[in-house]
């Protein structure tokens, strides 16, 4: 067992992990941060995306020990300080960018990473960026629309109710 210490959503946490413990397992099983989901075992689905030192990472591809000393952000830390939804979360709700909600934490974390680097992504840029996040419910229409809306773009011309 190895001791790891990292900052998660602004708080310092420590734990004992096996060498084989994945960051996703450490978050879910040890810290009970179950918003990070496990949807596959080949690092394809993206339901487990978190930010490590500001970069999006599929937390099932990283050992917890590798994140020792890192600054980690998960879906649980994304809302505004007063608990209200942040601009991306609010856009997902307003534009119905989620249905069952299982892929949603990864989608929101990927969207946040995209918008940090690209303040006004085009439709094609959003779609390409989301290649590593699979959603089975929405057909992606409203996810793409929500992310564009969250960047401040006018999405009223994109068909939908």
């Amino acid at each position, binding site marked *: 067992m190895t001791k790891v210490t990292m900052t998660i959503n602004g708080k310092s946490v420590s734990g004992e992990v096996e060498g*084989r413990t994945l960051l996703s397992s450490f978050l*879910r*099983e040890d810290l009970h*941060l*179950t*918003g*990070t*989901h*496990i*949807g*596959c*075992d*080949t690092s*394809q*689905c993206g*339901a487990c995306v978190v930010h490590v030192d500001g970069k999006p990472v599929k937390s099932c591809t990283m050992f917890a020990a590798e994140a020792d000393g890192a600054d980690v952000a*998960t*879906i*649980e830390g*994304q*809302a505004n300080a007063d608990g209200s*939804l942040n601009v991306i*979360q609010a856009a*997902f*709700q*307003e534009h*119905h960018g*989620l*249905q*069952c*909600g*299982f*892929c*949603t*934490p990864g989608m*929101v974390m990927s969207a946040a990473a995209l918008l940090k680097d690209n303040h006004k992504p085009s*439709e*094609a840029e*959003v*779609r*390409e960026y*989301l*290649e590593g*996040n*699979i*959603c*089975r*419910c*929405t*057909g*992606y*229409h*409203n*996810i*793409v*629309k929500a992310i564009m809306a969250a960047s401040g773009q006018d999405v009223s011309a*994109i*068909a*939908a*109710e």
Partner: protein
Amino acid sequence: MPKDGGIGASTVRREDVRFLTGTGQYCDDMNMFGQTSAVFARSTVANGVIKSIDTSAAEAMPGVLAVFTGEDFVEVGGNPAGWLINSRDGEPMKEPKRPVLAHGKVRHVGDAYAAVIAETIEQAKDAVEAIEADIEELPALVNMKDALAADHYVHDEIGTNQCFDWGWIEDNRAATDAAIKGAHHVTTLELVNNRLVPNAMEPRCSMAQYNRANDEYVLHTTSQNPHLTRLLISAFVLGIPENKLTVIAPDVGGGFGSKIYHYGEEALVLAAAKKIGRPVKWTADRTEAFLTDAHGRDHVTKIELAMDKDGNFLAFRTETMANVGAYLSNFSTATPTFLHGTLMAGNYTVPNVYVNVKAVFTNTAPVDAYRGAGRPEATFSLERVIDKAAREIGMDPIELRRKNFIKPDQYPFASAAGLEYDSGNYDALMDQMEKVADVAGFEARRKASEKKGKLRGFGVNAYIEACGIAPSNLVGVLGSRVGLYDAATVRVNATGNLSVMVGAHSHGQGHETAFPQVVAEMLGIDPQSIDIVHGDTSKIPFGMGTYGSRSLAVCGSAVVRATEKIINKAKKIAAHMLEASDGDIELKDGVFSVAGTDKSVTFGEVALKAYIPHEFPLEDIEPGLEETAFYDPANFTYPSGAYCCEVEVDPETGKVTVESMTAVDDFGNVINPMIVTGQVHGGLGQGIGQALLENTTYDENGQLLSASYMDYVMPRADDLPFYTVDHSQGNACTHNPLGVKGCGEAGAIGSPPTVVNAVIDALQSGGKSVTHIDMPMTPHRVWSAMQNA
């Protein structure tokens, strides 16, 4: 205009807040005190005789608490098929037992033959590796045609690989044959409806607790219908009395059919929890999901369309082989029969229809209902052969469809496939589709594509489906072994807020938002004061759950009926409070008033009075304000639609891109347009996935080659376009109180033939005489078809 939050409002979903903040509670997010882990030993061969299983080494491994094999469940019942299908000769279908764990034989790769319970999942996984199973591999039966011809069987005890040979409608067979024989023109098409894996993003998970103090069990599980799961476990599999078993389906991450069914893992964790006296949890990994979730589709069909010299349809005749896999899953016998054959008249006045379906056992995972369940297969066959016929006789595909549409003045319409359609207007849908998709502008867009070196195609489709399953009286005649009503309890609490307990289960459909809109509209109160309770058999009345686009049409109607009972009783209480006759009481905007006076009491005051019944006329009115209704519809509902899409094909590579997709649907009345549109989007994504990307591939040994997201091509954001969705042309359902028809599956039904028709159109525009390409239309398949044409 509807008031905010009532019927017709695009109210944003309240459930979104927990999903967006990571506070949803899916099965695997929960852990119980003292919890242990289950891991299954699964067959690596498709067909084999279990000679012996030695678990002694596994039992001695660290942390191991118990090891189970199929022998431990020989005495318990089998997991049954929910529909009895009789073959054309009157013989009932073959129903081999589906055990909790395989014993005697393993019948598909992934078939579980043992399970380890250990303190941790890692220990359980390590111990599974130590199980020594001597399994003698036998030749696998993978291809349906080979299985029908084989002299060895998936289930030796039934002596055949044919489950049934079904004719619909057998009495129409001779007339259909005669119509085809005498027809001016007959178009024939052989096609494959490709095998798909539903792929809900949340893998299945089941967690059982056993309370020795009162001999009670609690099962948390990923289910679309917890009461049905409980009934199957209680009445057929383990015999646990229903009153001793609570089944809870908490937040569930998508279903698409695959979570309707009871699976052996649920029974195993229940039995294990009792044996070791501690909670037991199992969570599938994605490979297990691919290997063991019920798959969908997998039909091989020959369809013939007979027409007279003017293009009037005279008959449809089909012969289908439908794969049911290694065991009969719960809806597997209904899906290729009554959810498929009854729709084979489509939107058309065709007088003769005959459908033959042979269901075939193979050494593959069970196949069952997947989004659309039989109706996508029917629509695909019909709309592909109609398109081919239009090209053969040189008629515009839209014109040929219009010529044969049922007209608005023909409802109720008795279809040649045995259903009575209640309402619709297919020409109006087609008109709207032509308008919103700017069909008139297609030729200009084709020229623009050609300038870029691409071939552009236009594809069209009309569909009808039967939803809201269903009338128990009808499905009973058709072989269903369960009723298909639903139920709701409306509980008005003393302080005036409401808890509405429903039999439907929401796993993405937004019931927690849409159902309160209905109740709020009826009572004239704030929808935020209404909460939906679903998914827990200890809290909800006995409803049949969510599948077949039935939640609103069936369970929503039960909600309406229960709310009507609430209003009736509340009016009596208000009449007493206002010293009036209850016939004079009116309810408007949450206020009960005496007609023609200014005397009134609010809904909240009536609620409080119901629970503090001082000076209450107890001889006339019971205290309390809580009502339950069961609703069993008079008929299916019949959503319909006109879809079109435009594709570009790269002639150099065969790659197809969907440039536009338009869905115009008649869903009857719409409660929440935003949610309905989202449901269509999702179906379109899955349908385009089927048409272009997704395929479930077994090799000749029965190994699943597409068992991960590296190999099974899920549609991703950059594979799909923005969609145009329109439901302005609704014709209310005539027989349920909301006038709703159901929208959950439409997109997946209407889109696959639309895409294929468009690709064929594109290739023919490039001078290629290609008439059909099987799905998925991968670049390789399209390119090869172009080279061979």
